[in-house]
């Protein structure tokens, strides 16, 4: 198994190989239309373990709303795999968002800032 796939499994505790590509996760995802690759397809690419994985941007659009995790009939929980996928980058000390550059940071509710920081910085 590819190293990247092994790590996603060990950080998430979920098994992407159980997915039978029903597409329900992509149907319920509130941000699917902004993603370059819809959730069910990301899971397929994880199964295949190919080079395309590194180019996927969808994981940064996922806001951990748990809609797909609750509905997945195979208990794959794409949103949880996505978290592990993000952590592969964040745990190297690479931030995805520079909080210092956000214009509206002191106007939005604090929970938005804390949540963004949790999901996009290391």
């Amino acid at each position, binding site marked *: 198994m590819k190293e990247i796939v092994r790590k996603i499994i060990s950080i998430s505790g979920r098994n992407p190989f159980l997915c039978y590509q029903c597409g329900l996760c992509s149907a319920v995802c*509130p941000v699917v239309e902004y993603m370059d690759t819809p959730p069910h397809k990301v899971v397929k690419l994880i199964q295949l373990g190919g080079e395309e994985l590194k180019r996927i941007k969808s994981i940064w659009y996922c*806001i951990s*709303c*748990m*809609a797909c995790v609750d509905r997945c009939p195979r208990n794959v929980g794409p949103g949880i795999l996505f*978290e592990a996928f993000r952590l592969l980058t964040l745990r190297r000390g690479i931030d995805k*968002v520079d909080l210092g550059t956000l214009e509206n940071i002191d106007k*939005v509710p604090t929970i938005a*800032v804390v949540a*963004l920081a949790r999901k996009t910085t290391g």
Partner: protein
Amino acid sequence: MNYLSSLKYLYYPGCTIKRDALEYEEKSLLLLRKMGIELKELESWYCCGALPSLAIDDIMSYVGGTRTLIEAQKLIRRGDFNGLLTLCPMCYNVLKRINLVLENDPDKLEILTEYMEEEERYGLGVNVVHIVEVLAGNIDRLKEIATEKLTEFKVAVYYGCTLLRPKEIAIDDPENPEIIENLLTSLEVAIVDYPFKTECCGSYHILTNRNIVVDRVKRIVSSALRRGANIITVVCPLCMYNLKQVVKEGNKLRAMYLSELLVHLVGDR
């Protein structure tokens, strides 16, 4: 109101209530006081972290929330409290999920206990509740004090995500919650049903991709409007902020915290 049995909760405000949603707090505290429900704010508390980590090896992210739960545990031992009440659904969500993880995984609790050696051990029993549950559980008290009629209101209820997902911590059926509708119906407030009441508002994308939030909220709001709503009621400060990107002062539809709506029913003195 001495005919009512005493109900006492500890209260965990969290950072957003104290910084960005003071009026939500004010209305909620007023409402609960009028219902004869006593609150005691925690003497010290920590940020819950807003969204819990979904990684199975990320125990650090539970530290803040667990310290808050331990603080509650100490007070519950001394006083007669029914649980720890939250107003912010994200606080509710995080504390409930920490409880769930630690109940199911004793090893994690062990590691946390070792790490926070200056704290007492967390004994798992703190009952975390959201204000909606307390309101719904005490409809009789509300009926007793509801003096006004809100005949002109047609209310669409917007739940958002964090009171309902993951389903293990949901305050009601996550696919078709009705807890707030039932509460309002029993107080003779007219309800409007629409299909987007549990759809995500776009959450923290407000910081980095505002267009996503605006698109999402337009979909939610236009559906509520088409069904004839003139009020959309919410319980989350972030949902409120995001809705207000579209719902402006003077529009046909007003966004209103549930607590404020209920204060209209019971009067504000």
